[in-house]
Each structure stands twice: as structure tokens, then as C-alpha cells.
């Protein structure tokens, strides 16, 4: 196990360099093809050319290679790596350091992601087990159909509907009533409330986790059904073990392997999905930061934040891999 961890950490270095390079390539190509972000700041009415030139110099966007489409700008990449090594991820177009913006907002996104993950994992797995054990019966069909609804609606539609129906129609009544406890109203809020850093993220967390919940429920169901047919389960049953023990000890752990893999992948997907959810629910997290930056064409923020997120994500991935090895003893990573 120790050797595995060490090897995995070592491999981490080329991965992160590779990803950073791909990111650099994408952002460089964006500037080369889509156009100068500084110019876009000003809209229809161009300011004097000297003003633009000065700003381009301030943001390191005046390198001539940025004019040559297809040029990977390796020099800029090396400069960038040097800055990253000193934890300098640049400043936004308003002069604020991106690390500062990120650190301010990351905890909010982490809370949101944790709520979504816990929700999707707990409810998803439970629904999956329920459906798997009662294959082709009512409960199974209900789970299968309702998860399809979650999958089929684009998240922006689903989020808006949840915000309007649960957050406003139901939630506002609860918040204004005299009988309901405070926490209940906050759990169904239309937006983020800094006084309730966890509770007010409940509804957006559920929205964020909804798609993955469907995926996890279906994965668990399928996996469970497969494993219930396998030889070792028959053996266990033949030995006279109870269903509870068969499912709980022998089947579930094996069935959860693809589910754990998916949850690991999902951490990354959730961070991406947070972009839309945080936009709808006005949550001051990293997703909102990127959302606003895309709208404002603030390229330094997009690149800086995405880089930081990527690093976080790759670390999370590493941890999941290690956890994975611990979970399934059959997997020999020698």
C-alpha cells in the first residue's frame, strides 16, 4: 500500500504538468482565435489605442505570439509555471489577486459539493439497493422512472423550477410563518444566506446532486443485481446466511466499486455543475466566479481559477484512487 501511494504521488507530477499545459494551450488558442479580452472589456466604443496597449502590457497579453494562431507560446507557459510555483495565479482585470478570490469562495463551493455528494451518495445508493432488491416490481419501476426525469431535464430548467416552487412558493411561506422553525425555512431558500452557511445551501445542493443521484441509483441497482447472481452469493445463500448478511456483507461492497469510481469522477463534474447552480441560486462560490468571468470575458480569472480547480481536482482524484485500493482487496496494485 505504501509503495502504491508513493508511486501514485510521483506520477502526479507529469499529470499536473500535462494538464497545465493543455490549459495553457486552450487559453492561448482562445486569445488567438476568439480575440483580445482587453478590447472586449470596452464594448462598442473603443478607448484610445494607448489605453489598450497599456492594459495588455499590464496583464502580459502583449506577447506577439498571442497574435500568431497556432503558436503554443511556450515562453509564456514557462513564465506561468514560474508564477504558479510561487502561488501567484495572476490578478483579474480589476487588479485583485485570483488566489484571494479563490480562497474567499472555495469553502462555499466545498460546502455545496459536500451536501450534493452526501445527498447523492446516501439517497442514490439507498434507492439503488431498494430497486435492485425488488427488480421489476413497483419500487424498482418507480425509481427507474423518477431517475429518468432527473436525467432528462437540463440542470438550468430543473434548478429554476426547484428555486421557484420549493424555494419561493413553499419556502417563503415557511419563512414568514410563526410556527415553523427557522432552519426549515432556510433549508428551502431562494439563495445563499451567509448567516446559515450550511442550511441555506441545502436546496441548491439537492439540485446539484440530482443528476448524479440518478446515475448512482442506477449504477447501484445494476451492480447489485449482477452481484446477486454471482457464485459467491449463491454459496453464501447455500450456507444458509440471511439475506441481510448476504446483501450487507458480501454483495454491497463489491457492488459499490463502480459507484465509488463514479463518485470520484463526480467531484470534478460537480465543480463544473456548480457553475450553473451557483448562478441560479446566487451562491458566492467558485462556480459563480467562473460564471461571472465568462460573462465579463475576464480571461485571467478563467485561466487562474480553472488551474486551481484542476489542481484541487487532481488531488481529490489521487485520494479516491488510494481509497479505492483500500476498499477492494482484490485489486492488487503491485
Amino acid at each position, binding site marked *: 500500500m505504501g509503495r502504491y501511494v508513493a508511486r501514485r504521488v510521483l506520477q502526479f507530477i507529469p499529470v499536473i504538468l500535462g494538464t497545465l499545459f493543455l490549459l495553457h494551450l486552450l487559453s492561448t488558442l482562445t486569445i488567438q482565435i476568439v480575440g483580445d479580452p482587453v478590447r472586449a472589456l470596452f464594448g462598442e466604443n473603443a478607448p484610445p489605442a494607448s489605453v489598450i496597449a497599456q492594459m495588455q502590457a499590464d496583464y502580459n497579453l502583449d506577447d506577439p505570439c498571442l497574435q500568431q494562431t497556432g503558436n503554443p507560446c511556450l515562453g509564456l507557459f514557462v513564465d506561468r509555471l514560474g508564477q504558479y510555483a510561487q502561488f501567484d495565479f495572476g490578478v483579474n482585470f480589476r487588479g485583485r489577486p485570483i488566489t484571494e478570490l479563490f480562497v474567499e469562495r472555495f469553502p462555499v463551493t466545498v460546502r455545496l459539493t459536500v451536501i450534493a455528494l452526501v445527498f447523492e451518495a446516501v439517497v442514490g445508493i439507498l434507492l439503488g439497493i431498494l430497486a435492485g*432488491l425488488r427488480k421489476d416490481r413497483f419500487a424498482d419501476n418507480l425509481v427507474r422512472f423518477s431517475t429518468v426525469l432527473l436525467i432528462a431535464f437540463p440542470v438550468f430548467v430543473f434548478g429554476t423550477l426547484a428555486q421557484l416552487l420549493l424555494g419561493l412558493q413553499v419556502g417563503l411561506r415557511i419563512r414568514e410563518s410563526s410556527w415553523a422553525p427557522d432552519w426549515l425555512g432556510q433549508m428551502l431558500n431562494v439563495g445563499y444566506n451567509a448567516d446559515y452557511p450550511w442550511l441555506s445551501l441545502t436546496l441548491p445542493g439537492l439540485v446539484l446532486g440530482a443528476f448524479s443521484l440518478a446515475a448512482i441509483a442506477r449504477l447501484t441497482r445494476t451492480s447489485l443485481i449482477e452481484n446477486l*447472481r454471482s457464485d459467491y452469493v449463491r454459496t453464501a445463500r447455500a450456507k444458509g446466511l440471511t439475506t441481510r448478511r448476504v446483501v450487507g456483507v458480501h454483495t454491497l461492497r463489491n457492488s459499490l466499486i463502480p459507484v465509488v469510481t463514479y463518485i470520484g469522477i463526480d467531484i470534478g463534474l460537480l465543480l463544473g455543475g456548480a457553475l450553473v447552480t451557483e448562478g441560479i441560486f446566487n451562491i458566492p462560490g467558485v462556480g459563480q466566479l467562473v460564471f461571472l468571468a465568462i460573462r465579463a470575458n475576464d480571461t485571467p480569472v478563467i485561466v487562474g481559477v480553472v488551474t486551481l480547480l484542476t489542481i484541487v481536482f487532481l488531488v481529490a482524484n489521487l485520494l479516491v484512487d488510494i481509497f479505492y485500493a483500500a476498499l477492494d482487496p482484490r485489486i492488487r496494485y503491485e
Partner: protein
Amino acid sequence: MSDASPPPAAADAETPAPNADQNRSLWGDVRYQLVRSPLFWISSVMVLVILTMAFVPQLWASTPPTARGACDLLNAREKPSAEHWFGYTASGCDMWASVVYGTGKSVIVAILVTIGTVLLGVTLGTLAGYFGGFTDTVISRITDDFFGLPFILGALVFLAIFPDRNIWTITLVLTLFGWTSLTRVMRGSVIATKQADYVDAARAVGAGHFFIIRRHIISNSIAPVVVLATIGLGSFIGAEATLTYLGVGYQRPTVSWGLLVAEGQNLALAGFWHLLVIPASFIVVTVLSFILLGDALRDALDPRHR
């Protein structure tokens, strides 16, 4: 929990006894399974209907909404009526015609992307999981590299490179940024499968890698991939809507389901519910059909089912 009937027994009941069909091939088994499943029939008919809408929309609606004079702004947002069961879109086109002609752009892309990601994911995931070692390291780390990239940034750049957005460019982008999850899941699944006794047994009798992968590994590990792929089919229809929202998806006046949903959302809240409900229902029914078909196929493909 104790009353949970043992599914293996139920499954066995509807399958012929093992060893009774020695001379039927894998695909023969699959066929035998499928023709006996009502779910398979219902979902295949639905999928067939959707596919004909996608490829020959003329069968279902005579005038495409892009035809000259097909839409009149005066009719915009009109609610369903006896003549026009589905009402009109926000741009004054017949909703039914718009949905039918939008099927192609949404569903064909989703299918192509699903095929693309499954092919890539299964191939790479199997190679990485089965051979392990150096192969695994290289494939897994490349997967990590791509996985970290944000879909939106990538999509913006790629679609800016191809100013003419059509089914192929959108498929390319979605595939390029979508294959990684399936690869990872497949790899995990293959790693678990290759420890099984029958694989050791096959190896012991001198079966080649290619034979083992083909005969045992893929069919035994593909279940989670099939689940995720069918789910992915639904999410790719939504992803197309997101691209359009960002301005790098289809260009109007092309119609697609994603476009219709995005356009209908705000107006729905102002009381024009049909603008959202109708295209969304088509997405739901489509996703449901493909998922049910996927379930039926998976059941048939599962060797333990026999």
C-alpha cells in the same frame, strides 16, 4: 429485507438451464433473450419512432420550420389548440414541426457522442484495466489530463475553431471532453473482473489475451458502462443546450430540442407552459426509451443471466 425474493432464482426461471444451449453463440443467446422481453419491444418501437423523426422528419411533419414563410411572428407563443395540438413556439413556428425537425440535431448528436465515448472508453478502459502496469499508467494519466480540463473552456475554443457548427463538430467536442468518465469506470470494472476464477481458468488453458478480453472481460465488465452511457445519452441532449446557451452550439434558425427548452424556460414561468413542457417531454420520453432499451440489452448481454 427478509422477504426480498432472490433475483437470481427469478432470473434463472426465465432462462433455459445452463449447458442446455451449448451450441448457441453469445449473440444467439442475446437474440433469444431479447425477443422474449416486452420491455425490449416497447422501447425498440419508441426508439424506432424517434430515429425516423431524426432521419426522415418529412414522415412526421410536412413543412420544416426553416422553410420560407413557415413561421409567422403573429402566432408566437400561441397555446395548443384543436388545429395545432402542440401550439406555436416563441418564434411563431408550429411546435410539432419544430420538435420533429429538431430531433435530428439533438438525438443524432447524442447517439454519435454516446457511440464515440463508449468505443473510446471501453477500448482504453479495458486495455488499462486488463494489462495494468505501464499501459495502465499511461492511459490513466492521459485520462487524468483530459479529465481536469473544463468542458466549457474547451468547447468554446474548439467551436471557435470551427465557425460552421454542425452535427459533426458538436459531436467531436462532446466526445473529446466526454470519454474520460467511461474510461475510468470501465477500467475499474475490468480490474475487478479479471480477478475472477473463470479468467484464471481461461488463462490456464492457454487462451490468448485477445480471446479472454473478447469472451470474458468485456461482457462481464460492461454493465456500469452501459448504465452510464444510456444516462449520458440524456445528458448529451442537455449539453447541446448548454453549448447553444453559450453561443457556440447550433446557430439559429436551426432547431434543436436544447434550443427549444432554453427558449421556453423563461416564458414558461410567465404562463406559457407549453413552450417548456412539450420539448422537455420529448427529451424525457427519448431518454426513457433509450434507457429501457439499454436495460434490456444489458440483461441480454449479461452472461451470468444464462
